[in-house]
């Protein structure tokens, strides 16, 4: 019988038993694991779709070969839409905050739980309900609008747009609830002595992200509701045939979705900050700069949405202003890069797999970053907009950046979460395949874009064939890497050797409790007397 005190041998996993105890839990750690399982499932679905897309693009359809899996444009467009929507709304946006954030934010702060544990559980149910609604559309009335739902195409195409949009709306609510919870937790539940400036950088990143989630997501919600109203009742907001303005939708959409790309990347930056200090065993360089640049990026990100619309017919002046503001966001991002590299200087660097992912992040994010500046440059974006250059750029940022960080963070905290160690060699092997495969897949796409190949093409002219072949082969390497990784995780959970309290000799609070942590996180409430990275 479970009592509410943490006695010997008790941890959050065996604290209560049975599926029901998980489905009704309000323990942030259990909720973090539930998110983990859901997100991994969606990642699998989105990933299979990505492989199919790449298979179709192996060769132009004029030549008969493997490049004819999705047979006609419609099927390709549907798979493309689900791949994009699943990866964005169900993997990358919730990924780090919902899995690692839920699990570690209270531990980082020395708190027992998040501020509103029941709301936390409710947000998982929102997420699952929204995701289910969205994914189910695939089984009766597939949507083919692309994850951006641009009008008037989304109004005209006779598919399940309304249901999909409703799903995204409900997932948005989950995102707002999580953001709210994190903000209050940061302000109210810090352990004695934990000032704002003694919080780990991961917490700062989650805090900045939470603000973005709270402010930006409602805009998406309203936009999607308007779209649904337009589609159901023909109110005439976006459809030119009814006197609406199709470009207005893009303004609304990007007013959310640009901040959303920072919702995707800022948490990743937080994770990377943790990894780099821990595995160089050195205090982070420029703590304040990193902390406040997250907030800075979050603030400016609201004013740059128009860089997605340089050729949409918006005015020349608007284009110039948006280009200028976008350049400004580049600066705090550059600052972070330099700070991380400077942290390595005179450190004691180990090459454990989480660190490999962090270094992989720096490598790929550098390329994602400089190509971002290219896209922010007006006349160059006119050429690159909606070509494969953009596809390459956002995969470098979202997959090379966010996903690398998510996996690095996952391996890093694995011992804490499960109390077991994984097989280090398998994890490294997985990294090597993913890293090489990633570059083989996406680097050629920069060149394809420069050559002019538009995105969302299910077929292409023969001039683009060779590079597309290379890219498809790369996707098989990535697959191999993920299979190794999955094996390492499953094997680690089932048979891994027992992990100590602090296997990496890290300084932050979550390592000052047993692995896995007890139900209440800490046997004794910790008292904080110094900053988070006092490696001396």
């Amino acid at each position: 019988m479970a009592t509410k005190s943490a006695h010997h041998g008790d941890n959050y996993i065996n604290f209560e038993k049975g599926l029901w105890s998980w489905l009704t839990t309000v323990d942030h750690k259990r909720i973090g694991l539930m998110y983990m399982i859901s997100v991994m499932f969606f990642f699998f679905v989105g990933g299979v779709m990505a492989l199919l897309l790449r298979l179709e693009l192996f060769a132009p359809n004029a030549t008969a070969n493997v490049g004819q899996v999705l047979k006609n444009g419609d099927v390709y467009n549907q798979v493309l839409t689900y791949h994009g929507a699943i990866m964005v709304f169900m993997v990358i946006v919730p990924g780090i905050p919902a899995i690692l954030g839920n699990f570690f934010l209270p531990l980082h702060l020395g708190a027992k739980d998040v501020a509103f544990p029941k709301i936390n559980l409710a947000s998982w149910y929102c997420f699952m309900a929204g995701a289910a609604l969205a994914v189910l559309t695939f089984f009766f009335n597939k949507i083919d609008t692309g994850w951006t739902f641009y009008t008037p195409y989304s109004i005209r195409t006779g598919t399940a747009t309304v249901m999909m949009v409703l799903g995204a709306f409900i997932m948005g609510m989950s995102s707002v609830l999580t953001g709210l919870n994190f903000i209050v937790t940061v302000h109210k539940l810090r352990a004695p002595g934990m000032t704002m400036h003694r919080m780990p950088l991961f917490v700062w990143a989650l805090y900045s992200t939470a603000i973005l989630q709270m402010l930006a997501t409602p805009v998406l919600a309203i936009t999607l509701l308007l779209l649904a109203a337009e589609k159901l009742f023909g109110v005439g907001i976006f459809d030119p045939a009814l006197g609406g303005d199709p470009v207005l939708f893009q303004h609304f959409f990007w007013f959310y979705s640009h901040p959303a790309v920072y919702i995707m990347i800022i948490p990743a930056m937080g994770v990377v900050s943790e990894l780099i200090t821990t595995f160089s065993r050195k205090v982070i360089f420029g703590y304040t700069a990193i902390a406040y640049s997250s907030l800075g990026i979050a603030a400016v990100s609201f004013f740059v949405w128009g860089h997605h619309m340089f050729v949409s017919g918006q005015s020349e002046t608007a284009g110039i202003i948006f280009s200028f503001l976008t350049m400004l966001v580049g600066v705090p991002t550059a600052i972070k890069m330099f700070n991380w590299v400077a942290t390595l200087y005179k450190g004691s660097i180990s090459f454990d797999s989480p660190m490999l992912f962090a270094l992989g992040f720096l490598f790929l994010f550098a390329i994602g970053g400089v190509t971002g500046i290219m896209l922010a440059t007006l006349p160059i974006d006119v050429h690159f907009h909606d070509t494969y250059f953009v596809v390459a750029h956002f995969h470098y940022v979202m997959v090379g950046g966010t996903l690398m960080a998510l996996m690095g963070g996952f391996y890093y905290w694995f011992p804490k979460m499960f109390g077991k160690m994984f097989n280090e060699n398998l994890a490294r092997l997985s990294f090597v395949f993913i890293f090489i495969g990633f570059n083989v897949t996406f680097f050629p796409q920069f060149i394809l874009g420069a050559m002019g190949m538009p995105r969302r093409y299910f077929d292409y002219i023969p001039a683009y064939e060779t590079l597309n072949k290379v890219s498809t082969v790369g996707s098989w390497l990535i697959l191999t890497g993920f299979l190794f990784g999955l094996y390492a995780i499953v094997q680690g959970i089932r048979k891994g050797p027992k992990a100590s309290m602090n296997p990496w000799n890290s300084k932050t609070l979550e390592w000052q409790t047993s692995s896995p942590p007890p139900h209440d996180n800490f046997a004794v409430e910790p008292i904080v007397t110094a900053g988070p990275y006092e490696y001396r």
Partner: protein
Amino acid sequence: MMWFNIAKAQSFMPTQGTEIAKQVDNLYGFLLITSFIACVLVIGGMIYFVWKYRRKTPNDKTAYISHNTFLEFLWSFIPLVIFLAVFVWGWYIYHNMRAMPKNALEINVLGKQWAWEVEYKNGYKTVNEVVVPIGQDVKILLTSSDVIHSFFVPSFRIKQDAVPGRYTALWFRAEKLGDFHIFCTEYCGTSHSAMIGKLKVVSREDFDRYLEQGQEERNLPLAKKGEKLFAVKACASCHSVDSAAVKVGPSLFQKFGHEEEMDNGEKLKFDENYIRESILEPNKHIVKGFPKGVMPTFQGQLNENELSALVEYIKELK
């Protein structure tokens, strides 16, 4: 400067068909080099440090360096200056790209699912082919009859969305003879990736002859006129006319006079009235095996004479 040329040569950009393309490539070349240097600094620095400071013993002492105001100022300030320089340079080129020249030759282009309809000032219409004279300013006036499309000529480095319910425009002055691709870059459904046109740059004389020829076509025999319309209205993108092969819609080859089975099992005769009805009310009868709602109606887009021309043409597909 040598570096610069190498970067440009390696930039994989398509042929430079216009002066603007050269300007864009110069800036892009500059960015490629700066980006390359930045990556070498960051990634190279990272690799150097992780190697030099790799863990040697389990209890290595590390330095305690929490910040360095001068360095931090420097690496915020230098990127800022570079970004602003790039922004101003970009602004200048963008302005050249957007400032519409006076006295340009104007050509109207209508994007529709899934073709580009082109109309010259003298009323001559073509589809998926824009012919322009070399060395002259050309202004393309864009719009769309259904969803958003985007008119992209990679070799000219120009792109502009075609938005239903409004006009947008772009201009260029072609400086190389030859054929260039026009792609649609705003996702527009089923055949988005087949919405490819050709931009032909020809000499002044050839251009004049081309337009004249267009004028003559107005006096063609009925079936020939129909053939032309069949292409211009992009019927050909969905219906095959020289084999029984099915595209998006049923083939029209050798159909006239035969019977056609509908999706409700009814059999209809493929005659003049059936063709007419299929053009004006395509969803009234759907041929077995095809989805409803794919073909748009051409009601209001064709006059009686044009309808007869189309009927005549389809009749002769034997």
